């Protein structure tokens, strides 16, 4: 029998970026907050001896233990979904700080176009432009409405950046100036300027200078140590939940984190939630934690899994197209081109997770789509994140994959390739969704989440178009040879792509086509907030976490309002 604990104001399921932000904002406001985190405690001191590619980047030291829980995957409904037995395509977070600890820190806002994509597309190109089967819809919030929350998140992180001439209006400049530039970034800036584009430095959570945030917390200056993406920062220089928000919650005296606490159920009485059930994974004991407000902050996968397991809201049925929970799962595509340089060697092994330069000339509707049979676009960038030698063995296309020629070429080109990359926006499609797997179970006997996903026609066309643009930039930069990324075929769960999974519990203005409102309050349970990229109505063409953070600040405000007045916030 599960032991019932004293009721608290707010319980968050997971303590990553979203759980940390809610805790800081609500505990400071006087609410009793409990954070249930399935993993262990960790902090900056744990990363001092962490410059180990094998352990962290390839054996996934900091990430989800898939022996306990994973997802199942298939490309389409006709296939049998099978477990993702090891991490690959995306790297799910676990332990204090979640994936926020081992992120890169590229902290872009989405663009005004993203939030009103349907209205803007139809207004400009007519109703037929959005093809059948794509659930493209407005988000129920505009960029201008979300702007103050972006500002809050960027101040919490101390983001280093500069004005992007093509972005939405900012109420304040970036808290800190952009990071240092490098030879390869300069080459990209020159080439894109010559092509008539408008380069700007990637907004970065690796800080250019020491900074104190609104909670009085100190974030240090980045040392460009190059062990950033997939690593924790040993300098406390990469903003993450553990240094930038969680201590603020702890200082309030109103916050408790319980580690090794795996939540197994959100308890729902048909109109409200009453709390959550969890298991202490070390002792095996079960507990019920009652709460006035439950916040799902467990990342896209588990946010959706909890809703499906507790039957909160109507499940999406791909046959009828009815229902919303699990619908609109999106990802991203990676157009790009690699330049091989015979004459020049670059310091590719140095870098930082968010060190780079970008253009937005092919983002959203910044270019005319009248003659194109896709919508949206993606950011185009060069990054210098620190290439490590096991994972980076670039070779010209006709090189064998092993043996003498492979050895020579992979050694030679390790410091002689520069990649121009993009993140292509991803639109919801009727056949791409999340539901519960009928066969496979996690370590607690609960069904695994099942992902049915493949690249769409829209993805394939966008990939081809943007790839061409990246190849042109690479040539302009003077590469001896430019090799464009291949055309898209089927999505594979195997190679790493991005941890930019979105959707499944999307926000919107209408309960019939969304799961949560613009405060991320569930339409069918007013004291349940579902916080994270699960709320994205589609995925934009830049990294998601600035938008995730902004929505978390908005949800925090929503919870404060709800605790005062109750009821639906919209």
């Amino acid at each position, binding site marked *: 029998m599960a032991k019932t604990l004293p009721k608290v104001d707010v319980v968050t399921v997971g303590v990553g970026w979203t759980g940390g932000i809610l805790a800081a904002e609500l505990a400071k406001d006087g609410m009793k907050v409990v954070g249930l985190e399935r993993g262990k405690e960790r902090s900056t001191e744990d990363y001092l001896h962490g410059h180990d*590619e094998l352990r962290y980047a390839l054996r996934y030291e900091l990430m989800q233990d898939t022996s306990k829980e*994973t997802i199942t995957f298939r490309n389409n409904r006709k296939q049998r979904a099978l477990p993702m037995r090891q991490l690959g395509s995306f790297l799910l977070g676990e332990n204090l700080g979640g994936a926020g600890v081992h992120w890169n820190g590229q902290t872009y806002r989405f663009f005004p176009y993203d939030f009103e994509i349907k209205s803007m597309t139809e207004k400009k190109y007519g109703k037929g432009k959005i093809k059948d089967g794509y659930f493209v819809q407005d988000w129920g919030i505009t960029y201008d409405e979300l702007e103050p929350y972006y500002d809050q998140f960027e101040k919490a992180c101390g983001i280093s950046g500069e004005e992007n001439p093509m972005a939405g209006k900012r109420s304040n400049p970036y808290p800190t100036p952009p990071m240092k530039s490098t030879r390869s970034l300069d080459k990209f800036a020159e080439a894109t300027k010559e092509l008539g584009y408008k380069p700007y430095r990637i907004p970065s959570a690796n800080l250019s200078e020491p900074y104190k945030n609104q909670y009085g917390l100190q974030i240090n200056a980045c040392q460009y*140590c190059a062990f950033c993406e997939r690593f924790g920062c040993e300098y406390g220089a990469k903003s993450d939940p553990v240094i930038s928000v969680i201590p603020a919650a702890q200082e309030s005296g109103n916050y408790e984190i319980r580690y090794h606490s795996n939540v197994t159920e959100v308890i729902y009485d048909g109109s409200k939630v009453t709390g959550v059930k969890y298991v202490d994974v070390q002792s095996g004991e079960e507990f019920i934690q009652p709460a006035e407000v439950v916040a799902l902050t467990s990342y896209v996968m588990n946010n959706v899994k909890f809703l499906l397991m507790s039957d909160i809201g109507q499940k999406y049925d791909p046959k009828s197209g009815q229902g919303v929970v699990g619908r609109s799962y999106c990802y991203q595509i990676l157009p790009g081109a690699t330049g091989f340089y015979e004459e020049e060697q670059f310091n590719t092994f140095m870098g930082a997770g968010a060190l780079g330069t970008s253009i937005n000339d092919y983002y959203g509707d910044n270019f005319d789509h009248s003659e194109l049979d896709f919508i949206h676009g993606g950011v185009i960038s060069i990054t210098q994140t620190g290439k490590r030698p096991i994972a980076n063995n670039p070779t010209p296309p006709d090189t064998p994959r092993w043996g003498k020629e492979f050895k020579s070429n992979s050694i030679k080109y390790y*410091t002689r390739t520069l990649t121009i990359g993009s993140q292509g926006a991803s639109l919801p499609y009727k056949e791409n969704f999340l539901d519960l797997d009928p066969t496979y179970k996690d370590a607690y006997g609960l069904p695994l989440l099942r992902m049915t996903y493949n690249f769409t026609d829209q993805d394939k066309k966008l990939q081809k178009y943007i790839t061409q643009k990246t190849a042109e930039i690479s040539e302009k930069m003077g590469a001896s040879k430019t090799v464009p990324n291949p055309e898209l075929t089927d999505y594979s769960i195997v190679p790493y792509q991005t941890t930019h999974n979105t959707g499944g519990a999307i926000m919107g203005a209408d309960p019939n086509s969304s799961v949560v409102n613009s405060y991320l309050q569930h339409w069918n349970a007013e004291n349940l907030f579902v916080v994270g990229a699960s709320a994205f109505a589609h995925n934009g063409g830049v990294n998601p976490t600035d938008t995730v953070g902004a929505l978390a600040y908005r949800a925090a405000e929503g919870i404060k309002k709800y605790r005062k007045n109750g009821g639906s916030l919209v």
Partner: protein
Amino acid sequence: MSEQEKYSRRDFLKKSGYAAGGVVGGGLLASFITMQVMEDDPKTKNQSDGGSDDQFNDAFMFFTNRDDFRVLASSCERVFPEDENGPGAIKLGVPFFIDHQLAGPWGNNTKEYMQGPFYKGEPTQGYQSRMNRGEIFRMGIKKLKEKSQSDYQKSFQELSTEEQDKILTAFENDEVKMTGTTSAEFFELMRAATIEGVYADPMYSGNRNMEGWKMKQFPGAQMSYIGKIESDKFVDIEPQSLHSMLNK
């Protein structure tokens, strides 16, 4: 987004097969190099970080007999051969790296979801074997031995490098029948583990004396590049391992 290896297996397989023309030494017995290291010749013993002769780590944690280990060693050397750039897999200690990895969590799939039911699955669904990596290596090595005997009536180590490459290519192209796994799956694991052993921190027993890093001009576990990041020129830096960081 880290730069992934761009040129997929499929691109490679599209070509009509691996031309052995680039192989050094033509018919040189691959076992020549293998033997040298295996037979405890003090001259070719791998130098440890401190130049010590006592490589206590050079012993079996996973393997149980020398013959299996030599087959693995010869295969790794074909993936990453010694050449004018520098040492190959064997001199770099890669076979011991793999032995130790197979004995630990990686070889035992402790972080992998290993619950059934097991089905073959599509390539896009990834690893679906009920066998762990250690078991896959065992079976793969057994098959390598069998195929050398049936194709050439010799042991794998006794074959010429060209013959070894032919056999490995057959594994890579999934032409060798295996149960519970596939020859391509074994080959990919072996290839990946070899590259890991070449470039992982030397504490894992490969990348001896940081020679893997030196070839690639990768400086290892540096603490900071803040003074060099803006340099217009390529900066060649002496590598440093985690061991030296701990001793600072």
